[in-house]
């Protein structure tokens, strides 16, 4: 999965212009493959039904086989930050931005870190209901799920 920087066609002259690029492995690859198809899928034990994040080849509770399974893409903001300082490549402009731990509806404590879009950073609150949408990660190789506030429960 690792490609040299020179081989990436869309890389600009500035190495700090692109956000951190994921390096999928044998276990995480289906997560990224699903996103590329516009689906959010999480790792789940086929025997006991436990959702596992980060994903594992076998269930940590029952050692059963696991499979990536689509989730509804809805959840609530468990906590969040507003990033003001230029700190991470690809995010050196367009500050501030919001990153949340989104607790997915499928299981208590099942969380994904993700950007929150479509809301003034000052309006974000813990408990805010959000829904996933998909956007291309600059660099051209990956799609990510960001979350936008939704009305209602």
């Amino acid at each position, binding site marked *: 999965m690792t490609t040299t920087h020179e081989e990436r066609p869309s890389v600009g002259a500035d190495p*700090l212009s692109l956000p951190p690029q994921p*390096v999928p492995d044998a276990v995480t690859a289906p997560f990224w493959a699903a996103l590329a198809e516009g689906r959010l899928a999480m790792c789940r034990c086929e025997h006991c039904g436990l959702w596992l*994040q*980060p994903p594992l080849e076998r269930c940590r509770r029952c050692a059963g086989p696991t499979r990536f399974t689509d989730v509804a893409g809805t959840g609530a903001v468990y906590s*969040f*930050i507003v990033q003001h300082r230029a700190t991470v490549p690809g995010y050196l402009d367009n500050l501030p931005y919001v990153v949340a731990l989104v607790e997915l509806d499928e299981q208590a404590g099942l969380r994904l*870190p993700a*950007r929150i879009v479509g809301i003034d950073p000052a309006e974000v609150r813990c408990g805010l209901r959000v829904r996933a949408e998909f956007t291309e990660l600059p660099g051209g190789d990956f799609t*990510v799920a960001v979350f936008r506030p939704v009305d209602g429960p």
Partner: protein
Amino acid sequence: MSRSLGGAAVVGIGRSPFVRSSGRTTLSMAAQAAREALADCGLTAADVDGFTCYSTGDSAGPSQVAHAIGVDDLGWSLSVLGGGNIVTSTVAGAAAAVLTGQAEVVVVYRVLGSQTRYGRALERVEVDGEGQFAGPHGYLVPPQWFAMFCRRHQYEYGSTAADLGAIAVQERDHAVRNPHAVARSPITLDDYLNSRWISEPFRLFDCCYEIDGAVAIVVTSAERAADLPHRPVHLLGAADSNRFGGSVDQWDDLSCMYSRDTAPRLWSRTGLRPADIDVACMYDCFTFTVMATFEDFGFCAKGEVGDYFRAGRATYGGDVVVNPHGGLLSEGYIHGLNHHYEAVLQLRGDAGDRQVSGAETALVTSGAGPFGGALVYGTAAA
């Protein structure tokens, strides 16, 4: 059964200057700290048979540093992968090596050079492992992770920016009396509140001061310690906790940290409680790390840390002196080993202008989030 670590003691301490940018190699700084620590306790390279350090792959290793100071045949060498989370295990591991006869005199060190800065990505990043889920969203570095914890605490317990500021102001006030500290200008709460946002709810003064430098401590048996120049500082007990594979995202309750599990274990092993502690060197990569762990160790209830600090209970004349050296926030970030240096100095009674009167016990914590540990030092063996 639980065997005491009290048969081991810290007998020597050393360090290099703490500076923003040293222009030196990690090997040079670590060797300086190790030499100073040995000179401090009247030992030489010929007496040393063990060396250990923790690092994130950014440091000269134990065998290199031992060689650099003239150790010819190192009998016990352990390089530990980890940061603040692993300091307790590394120091307690050195003590265990001494107590089990694997080594007689062990040097423990940590060094950080200018090529290591945890607060910011300096070059193009590719992320594997769990980081691949977070990094693409611009969520990559520790100030962001622990600001996320802090926000949840504010939501659940109503803690405030002024509460965090009380910690930052207190620690800076302590650093004023510490010539080795890198940040010695007093700050006010207004200074804190006016400092720029980093990762909201963290401001600049919530974040530790990343620097270059090295610290080394020498661990040996209490028997041998009795023949050395300084009052020995004994290990009274240690405990760690690691959950969720170290995942800062999946840790179940962001209003607390590893210390929720470590504290009862440590108090049980030592037979001590918060009221018995004279000096608390609380790992303070961020102000909120102090807040969460201070609550977890039972010094006060959830949400009361701000009041505790404002009432003067965390400084001289109060209940316990927290980070008399100024901590990682103001003395400088040597990944927590400088907390051990300070604890030893205080328990020897050699801390000069910032001496905590009659200090007999010191709690030293390390780590943040889902993993870390703590130990207690005492002037008397357990």
